[in-house]
């Protein structure tokens, strides 16, 4: 678990400056440096507006960076890559497609082998517990189920890296806990490298091998915390004193007055 294998994502001196509509320059990210290793689960926590989503969009290749190097498996990210899957904060399902068709969207867009990947998509829907919901439409599902469809969709093309942008932020606490456990299971089964953005410290600690703490804008890595809790983790992990200590340590960096108090569990 988390043993430093080969780095799959390497970020060095990354900087992003936005030009606002009024012509002002706003620095969203400043001198961001990190490496993420193969099969590692890394969470990014930080105050609102610290550039977490900007970082994710740059890694996704849908937002150009201003400065620095961003490497995926050794080669620079210059556009959307087939080796990265994404789960957004909202499920972003197409309401005119049913669950199976939504999960198969990457197959159509990337023109993958239908027979092979549709089989995979069925298996993934079963893995996220939606085997019997293939023919349902998104509006017939709960928020948690919709998000599971979007996780299955992200996994269908079998990308080695999965980026998740506060995927459970919109869910109620119970569903969120359940989804965390599901994600642990999915990660252990699929052995993806996951970069997980979250507001919740306990979520970050529960899931991750390492937690990156971002500073307020302009965002940069303030601290990297290694989470040495034994795998496989469960809800009991949360009540151990080690868990509490790590969470407290992280909270120390995020501190007060950033309006995050309620979201930080």
């Amino acid at each position, binding site marked *: 678990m988390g043993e430093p294998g080969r780095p799959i994502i390497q970020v060095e001196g990354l900087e992003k400056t936005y030009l606002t509509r009024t012509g002002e320059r706003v620095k969203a990210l400043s001198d961001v440096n990190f490496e993420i290793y193969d099969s590692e689960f890394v969470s990014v926590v930080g105050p609102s507006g610290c550039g977490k989503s900007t970082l994710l969009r740059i890694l*996704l290749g849908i937002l150009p960076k201003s400065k620095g190097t961003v490497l995926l498996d050794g080669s620079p990210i210059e556009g959307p890559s087939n080796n990265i899957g994404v789960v*957004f904060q909202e499920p972003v399902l197409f*309401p*005119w497609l049913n669950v199976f068709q939504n999960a198969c969207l990457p197959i*159509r*867009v990337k023109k993958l082998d239908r027979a092979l990947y549709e089989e995979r998509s069925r298996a993934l829907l079963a893995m996220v517990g939606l085997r019997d919901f293939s023919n349902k439409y998104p*509006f*017939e599902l709960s928020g948690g189920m919709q998000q599971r469809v979007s996780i299955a969709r992200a996994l269908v093309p079998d990308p080695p890296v999965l980026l998740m942008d506060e995927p459970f932020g919109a869910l109620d606490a119970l569903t969120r806990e359940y989804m965390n456990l599901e994600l642990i299971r999915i990660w252990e089964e699929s052995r993806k490298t996951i970069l997980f953005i979250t507001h919740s410290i306990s979520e970050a600690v529960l899931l991750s091998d390492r937690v990156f703490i971002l500073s307020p804008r302009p965002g940069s890595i303030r601290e990297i915390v290694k989470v040495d809790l034994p795998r496989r983790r469960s809800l009991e992990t949360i009540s151990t004193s080690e868990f509490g200590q790590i969470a407290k340590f992280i909270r120390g960096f995020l501190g007060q007055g950033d309006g995050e108090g309620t979201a930080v569990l």
Partner: protein
Amino acid sequence: MVFYSRTGLTVLCNKAGGFSVSRLAVHKDKIPSIIFLFVALISWEGLVRFLDLPPFLLPGPINVLRELYFGLAGGVFLVHTWVTFQEIIAGFVLGVGIGFILGVLISEIRIVEQTIYPYVVALQALPKMAIAPLFVIWFGFGITSKIVITALVALFPVLVNVIVGLQTVDAKQLDLMNALNGSKWQTFRMCKLPSALPIIFAGLEIAIVLAVIGAIVGEFVGAEAGLGYLILLLNFKLQIATVFAVLIILSLIGVLLHYLVRLSGKKIVFWVGEEKRVVIGG
């Protein structure tokens, strides 16, 4: 039942179970309006008889129904209805087709938007009926000029709603297509067009109603046949009861066509709830 009946037609997620429920509810819902119709017809007939109004001023409903029957049985109405119906359908299809293609080009290709959109807006502000006489000169008294007028009238609500629909696509859906490395054409076909469909159908509903108006006004300007032509002719002859009979046919056509467009909209854009229906343009 009462819960469903308030909005009239009801969209339910599960199509199978929902239909009978909503149909029943619609029937129950219609009772007050049906009673009102009968009361209105009886008072109308009573008023005409009581005041002894001459039929060329205001004919009673019984008189109108008799004219409707004779007109239909004699075949006169059918001939003219067929002409107008063809004009409406052909004009609608033509207008929708051109409006759709123009709308897609304007919203997807920047240079097209910059070049022709200002003129399209200007043309939209122009009352289309004002140029109807020109079309009669260019395309003659036959069916063609009416089709062109109808198409021109039906075009704009479709054009506007296609543009609005394509430009109000959820940014997150575009992000997704982008992250999947979708081409522009794929993004259009798989994401933008389907997500614009609800608004496009709202435009089609307006377009079909305007198409009926367009055909009739076109016939008013100059025609050899059709229900609009018939209305003018009968007006001159002061056969007002027959005019009313033609109006009944005309409104039936309008209601029927609007219903068909609405119904196909609900079938195709099944994911949109009634409350989210957006009506723009017109």
